[in-house]
């Protein structure tokens, strides 16, 4: 559903003087939106501004912030140190980007078949199928990761099941340490964000007119060709919206890697979190945070320009 952003002044049959004044100044609209704007100013714009200011600061021996202007924090993140080039932080950022891309691709591969299935199901069953996609979200982010710890750990469910099958086949099986590992982090990320891809893809698939399939069939296209030439292109807006909803949280999260990676897998999110809590270096953490924000904005702008604005996001 595209959102009409055009002005739509209500034009009542009888305009009073007051109506006309309100319309001209837009006072009423402004009053309605102002609490939200104030909220965003205090909790988003000013905090982001403070983060930028802090990122140019330094810290004293006690971990307090000294507000100066130094590019030291950014230089350190880019690997420029007094001792020469050190790619440590560049590597962390690269790893986060790669993991975010891997997760997004896997999520699309899993989400598409399910969204396709739901969109083609009989009308009265669709809402229950969609409901089933949302139920896992109602546990909690942390509880879901904890569930994967139970499955993947050495004595966990997965090793138990493989061991049982191996036993039936009369083979020996030594449990594998699936957790903690980079693979476990990837599985956890895919699991956490899968529903956010299923819903927008479903929304765009559901909008495709059945007439188009009939036309494709009449013109002699087989199922595969119909999918490639009709279904897939028309579902691109959904995939764009889903990609934004998945990629951005994945690149910024620190919990999945913290728990399922067992402190081996350090991502930008972990780096930022540690600067604020363990290392007590807010200026450096702020600089990392600003770089993350810039990376995200570049990605979003490029992606939405390239594939069109994800109207599925705006249309809910």
């Amino acid at each position, binding site marked *: 559903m595209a959102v009409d952003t055009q002005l739509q002044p209500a034009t009542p049959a009888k305009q009073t003087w007051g109506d006309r004044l309100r319309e001209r100044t837009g006072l009423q609209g402004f009053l309605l939106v102002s609490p939200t704007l104030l909220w965003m100013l205090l909790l988003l714009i000013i905090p982001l501004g403070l983060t930028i200011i802090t990122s140019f600061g330094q810290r004293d021996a006690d971990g307090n912030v000294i507000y100066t202007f130094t590019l030291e924090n950014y230089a350190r993140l880019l690997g420029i140190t007094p001792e020469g080039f050190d790619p440590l932080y560049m590597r962390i950022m690269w790893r986060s980007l790669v993991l975010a891309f891997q997760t997004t691709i896997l999520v699309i591969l899993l989400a598409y078949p399910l969204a396709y299935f739901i969109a083609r199901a009989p009308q009265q069953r669709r809402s229950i199928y969609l409901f089933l996609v949302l139920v896992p979200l*109602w546990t909690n*982010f942390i509880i879901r990761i*904890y569930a994967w710890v139970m499955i993947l750990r050495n004595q966990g469910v997965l090793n138990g099941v493989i061991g049982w099958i191996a036993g039936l086949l009369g083979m020996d099986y030594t449990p594998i340490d699936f957790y903690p590992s980079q693979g476990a982090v990837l599985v956890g990320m895919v699991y956490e964000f899968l529903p956010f891809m299923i819903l927008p893809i479903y929304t765009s698939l559901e909008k495709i007119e059945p007439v188009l399939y009939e036309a494709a069939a009449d013109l002699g296209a087989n199922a595969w060709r119909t999918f490639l030439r009709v279904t897939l292109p028309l579902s691109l807006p959904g995939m764009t919206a889903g990609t934004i909803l998945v990629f951005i949280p994945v690149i910024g999260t620190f919990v999945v890697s913290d728990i399922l990676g067992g402190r081996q897998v350090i991502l930008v999110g972990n780096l930022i979190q540690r600067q604020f809590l363990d290392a007590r270096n807010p200026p450096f953490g702020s600089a990392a945070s600003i770089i993350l924000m810039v990376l995200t904005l570049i990605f979003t702008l490029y992606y939405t320009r390239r594939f069109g604005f994800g109207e599925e996001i705006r249309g809910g």
Partner: protein
Amino acid sequence: MISRSGSGNTRFTTAMAFLVYLFLYVPIFVLILYSFNESRTNIVFEGFVNRGPCGPFYWYCQLLRNDDVLEAARNTLIIASLTTLISTTLGTMAAIALQRYGFFGKRVSEGAIYTPIVTPEIVMGIGILVFFSAVFGWINSALGLTGGNRLSMGMTTIIVSHVAFTIPFVILTVRARLVGFDPSVEEAAKDLGANEWTTFRRVTLPIIAPGVLAGAMLAFTLSLDDFIITFFTSGPGSTTLPIYVYGLLRRIVTPEVNALSTIWILSVFVLVLIYQWIERRD
């Protein structure tokens, strides 16, 4: 493979969908199964517990005696409810303003309102942390507050931050509903002598109600599910369920947490079924 009407699923797509559902639900089933575990450490499933007067529901009874978990669950629900209330009210107002009125600075407002959607949660979380630390530090020293009187992070800071990141989603949902709205019914109401408030209450609100309700549900879900922003804005005495479990994960998570999750999922399930039943009846 594809039927001419464009609907219906083949055996292949059904099988694929079944596998994805399996992937979505295996962890949930494991979570529920382990709430009946004999073992307290909850690492290996050592058979079904059958202890005390509660029998197989031993951990569910233990849960009722675990004040820490109960308090965390209560905090989580309070936060989610108040967040939903505030953000649905403000979000609906803003959605109406953005959809129906033209006003000075509208484009900029839209940009500011949708920014949280494209901001990684950790960036917003630490921004708010830096902001509140600075403001609280300044107020505390200006007013000479010490000890327990000092302003610090807690339930209020969590709720205020949750409102900030849920509002955009409420606005999007309500706006989607407003798109197909025919303004002439409002004009009719006004012609018949209704004032603006009556028109809103008796005409506009009933029509956009499904959108408002969907927005409220979305806000509630997002608030319940949140960890990162809560992590950076919580303080002593405001432990939420996710923060509590995160602390346990480094040590031992007892089956009580599984029991709580099970109750949690079942209650939401029932609530949504009731909601769907009411909606279908209308």
